[in-house]
């Protein structure tokens, strides 16, 4: 291929090729990014329109995408038309409780599985692992019946308790705890530190990245959770945001400006959580994908 060309020519060809490749990559990536962001842009635009102006053929195509009017009162109205504030509070209470509960119980169980020895440990851990493949659909009906027996349907308890204990969180943290060095623990043991002391003062501080990952995943998952709240909740005032928004849609199905304003308000906290924890999020995907 290079026969008959001087070194200079080869270099120049190589460089041109590299530049072309870069230009092509940027073009392709930008096009893709526009496809990803476009719908969100449209969401914002729609949320800022006059209710009557959502479906009007605009003169120029770009006016569909760039906000031309700023009807901020759509946002205020969304709070008045439905008990949005209540949905918000419900979602926050439920998501925070699930996240705290799941991280705490998972971390404790993971410590027992990774650092302590007790008879039947491996068998029990295998049972945990095995349940990770059980589809949620299998346990859904009996758990619903159980909650009904307890009289917990339509309460926070029905949303929080079943979601608080997961094999996944236990498994993920156990894998991480196994990678921690044992020297510190041994030293602490010699100093007479209790198991609980070791867990609180050594294991947890060393596991901040893994704990942050689990926290992020759990919070985002429970914030978006739709099917389970739909099944166990009946009273509108106790709805979380996702089912609240769906209920809003069934009432005001055609009021797209309000629906989009509500949607944006629902997404916002998740975006913030993601922005602050992006690093942990990516690590968590790699952890569960590669090591799991």
């Amino acid at each position, binding site marked *: *291929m290079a026969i008959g060309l001087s070194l200079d020519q080869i270099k120049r060809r190589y460089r041109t090729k590299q530049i072309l490749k870069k230009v092509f990559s940027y073009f392709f*990536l930008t096009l893709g*990014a526009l*496809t*990803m*962001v476009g*719908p*969100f842009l*449209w*969401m914002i635009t729609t949320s800022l329109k006059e209710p009557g102006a*959502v*479906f009007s*053929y605009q003169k120029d*195509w770009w006016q569909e995408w760039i906000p031309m009017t700023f009807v901020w009162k759509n946002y205020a109205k969304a709070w008045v038309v439905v008990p949005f504030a209540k949905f918000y509070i419900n979602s926050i209470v439920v998501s925070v409780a699930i996240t705290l509960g799941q991280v705490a*119980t998972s971390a*404790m*169980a993971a410590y*027992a599985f990774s650092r*302590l*020895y*007790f008879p039947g*440990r*491996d068998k029990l851990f295998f049972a*945990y692992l095995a*349940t990770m*493949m059980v*589809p949620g*659909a*299998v*346990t*859904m*009906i*009996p*758990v*619903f*019946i159980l909650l009904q027996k307890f009289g917990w349907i339509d309460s926070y308890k029905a949303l929080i308790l079943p979601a608080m*204990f997961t*094999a996944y969180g236990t498994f993920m943290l156990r894998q991480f705890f*196994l990678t921690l060095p044992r020297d510190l623990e041994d030293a602490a043991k010699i100093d007479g530190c*209790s*198991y609980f002391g070791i*867990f609180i003062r050594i294991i947890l501080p060393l596991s901040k990245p893994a704990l942050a990952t689990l926290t992020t995943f759990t919070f985002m998952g429970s914030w*978006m959770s*739709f*099917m389970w709240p*739909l099944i166990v909740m009946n009273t509108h005032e106790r709805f979380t*945001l*996702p089912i609240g928004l*769906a209920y809003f*849609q069934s009432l005001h199905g055609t009021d797209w400006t309000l*629906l989009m304003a*509500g*949607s944006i308000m629902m*997404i916002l906290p998740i*975006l913030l959580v*993601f922005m602050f924890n992006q690093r942990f999020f*990516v690590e968590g995907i790699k952890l569960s*994908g*590669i090591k*799991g």
Partner: protein
Amino acid sequence: MMKSSTKETIAAYGFLLPNLIGFLLFTSLPVLASLALSFCSWDALSGPPVFVGLRNFVHLFQDPLFWKYSFNTIYMMLSIPLSMAGSLILAIALNQKLKGIVIFRTLYFLPTICSGVAIYMLWKLIYNPDFGTLNLMIAKIGDLFGLTLKGPYWLNDEAWAKPALIIMGVWQTVGGYNMILYLAALQGVPRDFYDAAEVDGANSWQKFWAVTWPQISPTTFFIGIMSIIGGFQAGFDPAYIMTGGGPNGSTTTLIYYLYNNAFNWQHMGYAAAIAWVLFVIVFIFTILQWRYYGRSVHYH
């Protein structure tokens, strides 16, 4: 020595207890209960469940709706290969040393973070046959070429509703988890392999098929199987929000059918039978997965 070991056992169970109680109450027992329920007939209101043997399963396999919704479920999984191919191409593009790559990665991740009800409502609006932005765009592209193009009725059309959900699904997942897994896999391919291929005069295309593709095949396998496992259980949220399972049941998946049976029609036993069919399917794919990955999942 014995004493400290007993102490350790007690401590261990102390740490395990909260999780273990939850695990028994909300996972172990319900699994057994749903198996028992699948052999019963029960409306959850009057009296206790009645044992009917295999009747639920016999009915299920004779139920034309079950087969229709199974077909829907599998049809919707077309989004898996499409999304995976897209994720891989994106990962390759993002694996280069370019400026602003972090910004791109975040933007591609946006639909994954924001998944859920808000996104389904947004796409319902996008797919609106008369005023949705998609059909407006199609019409405008037609105008450019002097044609009168009319987009399909999307969610209101039995034939187009599934493709509409697939397109949305690909948009939602293409830049998400799978792309990050692919990106990690690409970064794990040893540099030397590419150097060796270059010495042999391979072009980019050949390098991809000779080096990259075989090297990342475990990741492809992993993503594929996990997506299939997820795919069998998917489809409830978007269909509930966007189509209500319609038109004419064309977007109802197995999980939606289960939901209707259990919580709208109170056919608890029948719903449990559907759940166990799902479980068996998932189990088969999980075993497949473990045979490849098992060694690292088990004990170290």
